């Protein structure tokens, strides 16, 4: 192994160990938080069944293992988690793992689409903003992004549905695909893409606003830097300066920010998926809260932490690849 590969391997091993420890803390904390809330699955099921018979509730509680002391429940839960067993959702009558796996692709698709859109659009808008700094295109972009930044996500989603779905009728207002259409091939992909537009855009808006400001600032900084002046003094053309000298250095703060935002994005998925009835993890989580489906909720939270931890690790590695002065150790 080269020294560099060894360094990276050491870095990965350390970060992985940290990640596992962090995950354990999060799992315990989540468990404590969820059990601090009054009411449990037995109450919720009994409530829906329309009975308040104490005997029925007690039986239910015993069946669900909810009558055991909390430390025992925690121990059982952590033990299961260590084996990669997420448990069983009594609400859905299905294993939590299969429930999550069923919904995960939809959420990942939505996340990827909104992040991708936010990054791509912010690069364009931020670059324009920087090139026309303090002139009208910059002011217009600033105004629009400020609007995106300040508007609550759900309101934005609702207004998008009203405008594009109801009034203009261009795009579907909810769901992930048209049930009446075939679910194979290119037609299906296009159908999903059409359904994706509004939720992805809605979810992207807030991040688009932040990223655009960030790209604008770092572009301005890069354009004002000594190395760009030196590149100009070497006779380098503007296009090459933009692509080779400015963009790459301007990209690093964006990468950091995207990494930090992944957790927020997962949280935001709850709202977006509810507004657009997108069949993803966010909706599942929202429903689980109301149904006191603690097993399911805990698993989603833990899974969310895993995604965030892994994503941050990837971002750190990407950062090192983009910025030679940053070395993984």
């Amino acid at each position, binding site marked *: 192994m080269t020294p560099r590969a060894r360094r990276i391997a050491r870095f990965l091993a350390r970060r992985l160990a940290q990640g596992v420890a962090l995950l354990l803390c999060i799992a315990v904390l989540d468990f404590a938080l969820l059990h601090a809330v009054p009411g449990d699955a037995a109450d919720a099921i009994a409530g829906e069944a329309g009975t308040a018979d104490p005997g029925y509730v007690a039986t239910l509680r015993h069946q669900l293992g909810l009558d055991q002391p909390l430390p025992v429940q925690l121990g059982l839960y952590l033990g299961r988690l260590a084996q990669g067993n997420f448990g069983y959702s009594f609400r859905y009558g299905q294993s939590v793992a299969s429930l999550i796996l069923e919904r995960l692709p939809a959420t990942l698709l939505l996340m990827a689409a909104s992040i991708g859109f936010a990054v791509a659009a912010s690069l364009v808008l931020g670059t324009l903003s920087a090139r026309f700094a303090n002139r009208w295109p910059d002011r217009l972009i600033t105004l629009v992004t400020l609007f995106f930044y300040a508007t609550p996500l759900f309101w934005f989603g609702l207004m998008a549905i009203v405008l594009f779905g109801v009034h203009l009728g261009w795009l579907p207002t909810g769901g992930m695909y048209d049930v009446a259409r075939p679910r194979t091939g290119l037609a299906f992909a296009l159908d999903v893409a059409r359904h994706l537009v509004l939720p992805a855009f809605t979810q992207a808006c807030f991040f688009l606003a932040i990223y655009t400001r960030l790209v604008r600032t770092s572009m301005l900084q890069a354009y004002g830097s*000594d*190395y760009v002046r030196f590149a100009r*003094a*070497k006779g380098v*053309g503007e296009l090459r300066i933009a692509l080779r*000298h400015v963009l*790459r250095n301007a990209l690093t703060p964006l990468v950091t920010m995207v990494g930090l935002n992944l957790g927020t994005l997962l949280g935001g998925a709850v709202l977006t998926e509810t507004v657009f009835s997108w069949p993803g993890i966010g909706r599942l989580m929202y429903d689980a809260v109301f149904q006191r489906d603690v097993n399911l909720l805990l698993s989603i939270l833990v899974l969310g932490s895993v995604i965030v931890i892994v994503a941050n690790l990837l971002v750190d590695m990407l950062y090192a690849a983009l910025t*030679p*002065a940053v070395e993984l150790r």
Partner: protein
Amino acid sequence: MTALLEVDGLRVAVNGGAVVLDDLSFSVARGETLAIVGESGCGKSVTSLAIMRLLPPALRLTGGAIRFDGADLATVSPTRMRDLRGRRIGMIFQEPMTSLNPGLRVGEQIAEVLRIHEGLSRAAAWRRAVELLDHVRIPDPARRAMEYPHRLSGGQRQRVVIAAAIACRPDLIIADEPTTALDVTVQAQVLELLKSLQREIGSAVILITHNLGVVAQTADRVMVMYAGRKVEEGAVAAIFDDPRHPYTSGLLRATPDPTRPRPARGVLHEIPGMVPRLGARASGCAFRPRCARAVPRCAEGVPPLLATNSGLAACLFAQEGAAA
């Protein structure tokens, strides 16, 4: 012999406001080294950026001509200017720590010049870049070319910058305080390198500095600037022996001379006051408020450049013997 570079009546101003360079004229002959000296804020760097047409957006060229080998750089097209930069005029900046792009290998940053101006292939440009690194006396150049700037010391980075600036063997090298940010021992090495490269290529050099020791070591002629104007100009030895502008003599007296024994050196003089801020320059002679010799007449218009034994000086008393 006609001059390689002839700056004539150059004016630079802040957009719609204060004048930064006022009616600046000077010339540089082929192979010659002209030093431009003055305190910070006198317009030395602005002069060099104006020649390169790389003025920051807040500054504008408002008049004058910059004739370089037949072409007027003040009016030449951006495309033509870009072609001259790096190929016929090389520039070295003050801050080697920040002049190089932190995200590109130093070899690439040199090869870039050759690929643009000489149309070399990636591989050929890289080979030349390694040769150039060797030429600027960086040890183990093939390995060094692969490094990113943060792995190099300040002196080495400045050598890389120099290598990129001389890659196309330019007719003119503009060095804007090339050694100010370096350690004293490294300064001497870098200056020595610059001089030997100049001899080898035959370039003219404009050396911007506020270090008069550097001027004495390297330059043929010197131009002293104050508040955006030329106040004195002439051959280095003559000016140093017999400065006729009070500002020049002030600068000289503010420079320690280690060759003289300590008692004789006495207290180092300083010029009272500071370089005026833009837009706050005194009427008439801008140096008047700091000048011990100033008389009411100094306020009546900018003093003309008068011929002296050592060259030209913009002082009413320039022809009356050594400046106080």
